[in-house]
């Protein structure tokens, strides 16, 4: 391929280059600066103040907003919940998605239909998925109680039970997102070099050996990508929490973003909420940069 030259750095004269830059770049630059970069900078600034959002931030409190997060039960619970989502994604969702992908990447009858069914929840909005599952888990009208009553047990109110509510949330997350990861794996499997597998099979490698030593390593980039999306998605989960539990019972089902919403935005505690945002920002950026640097540099 000599035609496509991605590393092309030839300076081409003429054609109105400067004019093009001056017309094409500023709109994007302006919008990004006003609505992404500045708010992030301002979050860092506001986080040092005690401010209700009116007038100007004047009551400087230093790091007090940050210190009040340490030892704060509800915030720590939110942090633990975010970790639990990541653990559930890696320990349950990822193997499930990979297993299903291994079946569906083959040309078996109905593969396309099954792929579509499993991908379907992913295109639904989190709020709709959350509300559907609020119905499923509802103690009076839901499917979960209908199942327990088959066994003669009393109705269960999973989402109102502080020991079980977050597990129920995890079920919904896996239900909604495993199909997306499955699609990533199917795409990965279909681009595998099949001759390697055929050669290994001819040399007498067993199915397990072929999976362990050929398929899995070759699928590495896709697995690393899927882990990346699991973690990033876990860190920003919010929409689903509102219809399912609203953070309750007893603030046991908040994520960092829903904590930010219920404790910062709804009470207009701009300084405090900004501090939560900055902490979340640090988690996201550290993870994204660190992960790309250490796990995805060859991909």
């Amino acid at each position, binding site marked *: 391929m000599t035609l496509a030259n991605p590393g092309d750095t030839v300076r081409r004269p003429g054609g109105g280059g400067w004019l093009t830059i001056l017309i094409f770049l500023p*709109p994007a630059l302006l919008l990004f600066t006003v609505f992404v970069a500045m708010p992030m900078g301002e979050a860092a600034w506001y986080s040092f103040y005690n401010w209700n959002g009116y007038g100007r931030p004047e009551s400087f409190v230093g790091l007090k907003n940050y210190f009040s997060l340490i030892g704060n039960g509800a915030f720590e619970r939110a942090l633990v919940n975010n970790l639990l989502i990541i653990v559930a994604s890696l320990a349950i969702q990822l193997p499930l998605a990979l297993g299903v992908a291994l079946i569906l990447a083959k040309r078996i009858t109905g593969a396309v239909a099954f792929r579509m069914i499993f991908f379907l*929840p992913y295109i639904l*909005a989190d709020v709709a998925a959350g509300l559907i599952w609020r119905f499923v888990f509802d103690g009076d009208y839901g499917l979960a109680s209908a199942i327990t009553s088959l066994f003669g047990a009393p109705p269960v109110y999973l989402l109102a039970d502080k020991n079980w509510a977050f597990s129920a949330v995890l079920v919904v997350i896996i239900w909604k997102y495993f199909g997306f990861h499955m*699609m990533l794996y199917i795409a990965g499997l279909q681009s595998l070099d099949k001759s390697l597998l055929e050669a290994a*099979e001819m040399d007498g490698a067993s199915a397990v050996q072929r999976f362990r030593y050929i398929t899995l390593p070759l699928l590495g980039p896709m697995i690393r990508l899927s882990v990346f999306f699991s973690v990033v998605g876990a860190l920003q989960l919010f929409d689903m929490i509102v219809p399912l539990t609203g953070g309750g019972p007893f603030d046991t089902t908040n994520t960092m973003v829903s904590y930010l919403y219920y404790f910062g935005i709804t009470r207009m505690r701009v300084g405090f909420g900004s501090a939560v945002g900055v902490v979340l920002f640090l988690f996201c950026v550290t993870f994204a940069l660190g992960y790309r640097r250490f796990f995805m540099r060859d991909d």
Partner: protein
Amino acid sequence: MRWFSWRPDDGFGALAQYAVLIVLAGIVLVPLVATALGGFKELGDLRANPFGLPKIWVWSNYWDILSGARYWQVLGNSLLIALLTVFLTLALSSMAAFTFAHLHFFGERFLLNYMLLGLLFPAATAILPLFIKIRDLGLLNSHWGIVLPQVAFALGMGILLLRNAFRQLPGELLDAALMDGCGYIRYFFYVTLPLSRPILSTVAVIAFVGSWNNYLLPLVVLNSESRYPWTLGLMAYQGEYSTAWQLVLAFITLTILPAIVMFVMAQKYIVAGLTAGAVKG
């Protein structure tokens, strides 16, 4: 044709695989089907029998929503917001990506990295200052207050995908065009954009789905119900009829219906857009 290491399945293995697939498909579909059927039931029927078919099909649950203005209004608002978001995202990110792909100027690397910063963190992290900004700009309770930040946050992904695609186009084409006196801007409209339809549609799908399903930003920006997109409208409806699950279920079914219909009709593009976008980004 064998796609990977496992044998093409025969007998027991194939049966076991289908069993797993069918059970999983059941788990995925039962909540959705129960939701749609629940919308046809009476409340008592729903309570006694959440799984099965309705004893009496109560069409009026659905009909009342469809014949009211509320449902169409929230869908219309969502559509308007999503279309504006898609159009602006495509326009701004393709123009910016074009300059980053073909033109060289002082600080281009710095500016590109600056624009890609938005990929590192979700909008939620800066939502409070964003709210203050939207308020100070007088955009509170308006659709622009949702569209503009959505576009701003979608620019990173758009620029990344489009710049890579634009650079794959043969450079000789641009050389020849410039030689013949065609300027960059005409080249952009007459060559780059028409040749980049697949990747533009990927960016469009990502922006559309993101906007259609967005909840947090409208929640913070809007306060009058007449401007609500369907995600907020759904939650408001649930708040109002929280004791009448059958109505809420009918409303959920009707509001997710457009997405499901779109998905079934254009599944190839939607799946490709959402996964290829993720992989290439």
